[in-house]
């Protein structure tokens, strides 16, 4: 700990500040000084540029977030770049090793396995989730009695946290006592070992992921409600049937929302962790997701440098996949605003 902060804490304690509040004192003090400096800067800027009131107010109001972002997001990110170039076990000081961690990662068969498992999960689960959530949203978009109850029921599983969900499904898919194999046994099928079988573990997690499509479904539902009814009326007047209306009206109008859900789905699927963690990587590393392997290196093997390098590799993979998806979507996504711009150019 920094000696200045230690001194402030000791001083606060000697002044009778309650023990639980002592750690807050240096933080608040730094914040007060920082804002005094920012206030002075704003005052000076206002005197120099009297017409820039709104700009100064903007920066002042946004400053709490900016400071938080700089300290808690940008700071650790920059620090992790440095850590990724070191060998650090937390107990001894970091040793600079250059790109050795990156070079090791490219030769580590477990990194390859982790990428394979994670990408396979993403490639299968994201389209499945997208289709299921969209179909459910279409069904729940009809105005029938009790529809609100159905919407709530579909959304409810999304509120269950990852760990609770995994524990629940470990029971559902328990080979001996689980609900899944009990039901299968009633129709004469001997169920698999699910999480205990290397061939079945990943499909089981994919199956499990479909339980929480409620979140995406709500976004699709909001999008469907936003499609202008006059487009359907015009299509109907032109003689379009339900399928044509779906293909030529609903789909183009919904395409930006589908892209948004697909992008967030891809990013989320590449960051999957809990399922691998609870299943301890699964048999034969069948659930060795990339983030779980990263965690394992950081907090089981205490290889902070290597884990940081893995984090940056994952960042690059996510960035590349997002860019490819965005680029590829240009041909399939319809933006009304884009059309208006093009029209103006003509």
């Amino acid at each position, binding site marked *: *700990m*920094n*000696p*200045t*902060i*230690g*001194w402030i*804490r*000791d001083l606060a304690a000697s002044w009778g500040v309650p023990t639980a509040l002592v750690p807050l004192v*240096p933080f608040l003090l*730094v914040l007060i*000084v*920082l804002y005094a*400096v*920012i206030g*002075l*800067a704003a005052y*000076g800027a206002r005197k*120099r540029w009297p017409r820039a009131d709104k700009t100064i107010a903007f920066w002042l109001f946004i400053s709490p977030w900016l400071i938080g972002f700089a300290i808690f997001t940008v700071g650790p990110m920059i620090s992790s770049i440095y850590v990724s170039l070191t060998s650090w076990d*937390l*107990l*001894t000081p970091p040793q600079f090793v250059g790109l050795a961690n990156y070079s090791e990662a490219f030769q580590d068969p477990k990194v390859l396995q982790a990428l394979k498992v994670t990408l396979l999960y993403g490639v299968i689960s994201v389209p499945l989730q997208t289709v299921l959530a969209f179909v459910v949203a279409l069904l729940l978009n009809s105005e029938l009695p009790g529809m609100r109850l159905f919407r709530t029921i579909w959304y409810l599983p999304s509120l269950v946290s990852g760990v609770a969900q995994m524990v629940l499904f*470990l*029971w559902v898919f*328990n*080979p*001996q*006592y689980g609900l899944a194999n009990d039901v299968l046994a009633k129709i004469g099928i001997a169920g698999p*070992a699910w999480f*205990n*079988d*290397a061939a079945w573990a990943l499909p089981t997690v994919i199956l499990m992921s479909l339980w929480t499509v409620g979140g995406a479904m709500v976004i699709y539902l909001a999008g469907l409600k936003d499609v202008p009814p006059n487009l359907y009326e015009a299509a109907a007047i032109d003689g379009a049937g339900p399928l044509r209306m779906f293909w030529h009206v609903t789909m183009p109008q919904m395409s930006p929302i589908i892209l948004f859900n697909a992008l967030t789905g891809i990013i989320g699927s590449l960051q999957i962790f809990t399922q691998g963690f609870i299943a*301890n*990587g699964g*048999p*034969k*590393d069948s659930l060795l997701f990339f983030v779980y392997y990263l965690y394992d290196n950081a*907090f*089981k*093997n*205490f290889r902070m440098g290597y884990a940081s390098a893995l984090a940056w590799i994952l960042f690059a993979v996510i960035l590349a996949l997002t860019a490819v998806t965005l680029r590829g979507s240009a041909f399939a996504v319809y933006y009304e605003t884009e059309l208006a711009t093009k029209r103006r150019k003509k």
Partner: protein
Amino acid sequence: MKLRLIPAAAALVLAAGCATTSQPASNTNSDSAAITFSFWGTNSEAASLKAIAAEFEKANPGTKVTTNWIQADYEQKVLTSIAGGTQSTVMEISNNSLAGFVSSFAEQQVDPGKYVQPNISSALQFEGKYYAMPFAAKPKVMAINVDAFKAAGIPLPSATTPLTLDEFKTLAAKLSHGDGKARVFGSSNLYYRGWLTAAGGTYYNADGTACTFGDETGVKTAQYVVDLQNQKSAPTSTDIQGQDQAQWFAAGRLAMFSDFGPWTVADFAKISKPNWTLVPVPGKGFQMEVDGLAISKKATGKQLETAKKFVEFAGTQQVAQDQLIQGNTALGVPVIAASVGTLEKVLPADRNLAAFTTALKTGVVGPSVAKENQVSGDAEKGMNSYTALGTGKDDVAKILPELSDKCTAALKK
């Protein structure tokens, strides 16, 4: 002009807040007799350690022990605190994890003569030096279902002499019966690493530089475990997934429960039917864990003095050792002769808690290796994935030597 000073002032403020130093300020204040003490454990285990701290304060007026109960991910949190320079003055440590932490612990003077057997003190040695003061041991014993033995017409095993592994296998087969979810197993699930020690094998060589579970004894023991599972005398890991084997024992589904540590006493104390008692673990018994108290290398002055007094008090004074037993729960077995019988009195004599005392006196400990979590974690994951010790089907004679070689390579890396 004034405006130009603003960035400099801001930089100064941030520098004061962010600059790091190699000398932590908190928890190591050398002028104070107040120390901090980190430990892991359940509610009752934490109660034991808090009681020891309270007894120390009572016996040493003017000292203060602030306890820091870390309820989960103990080693990660201790490591993080060491990295941040905010570690406690005294930290609980298991002999299995000691090697990884020695660079942060102060060397200690331990008198082996104060403990009931030499393995207790030597467990907390690394490269010939002591880095923690022993204060609790966790030997294992075996619970047997007396009613199941009587019903099968089988005489009870000796309360003091361990069964041989062959005798255990025969008994487990005789005591098993029934089918499906109602099957009664002669034995609980067999933990390979424990049975390896029972069979006279070792996981690592004596100096912790190589893994040895792939040798002839290791493979034979693995085959022994697989055979017991195949003949359905013991449940597989799939059978017990999500199950509490203590509850199986209480329900009469297990005739012998071989992984019985001091912390299990509280759960079994509630079981009145079936009638049960404790006997030694077969063969040479399971490996014994020894927990010690380490002192931060950063502690100096009065604080170091207090920390030394505290660990000495916790590990060698009867008033502290007796606190390891709270009601019918036990953090571990006391390690000094004056307190060693305390656990025996928790339950009636016919439960034979004295088996713990016997196990303590004969308990073996393994060497502490620096990357224990990583190397043994990877090896056990391999065993569980590929062989019938877990959910796999491959031959243990092929897989174990391969895993053992990988494990040795990881140790040497």
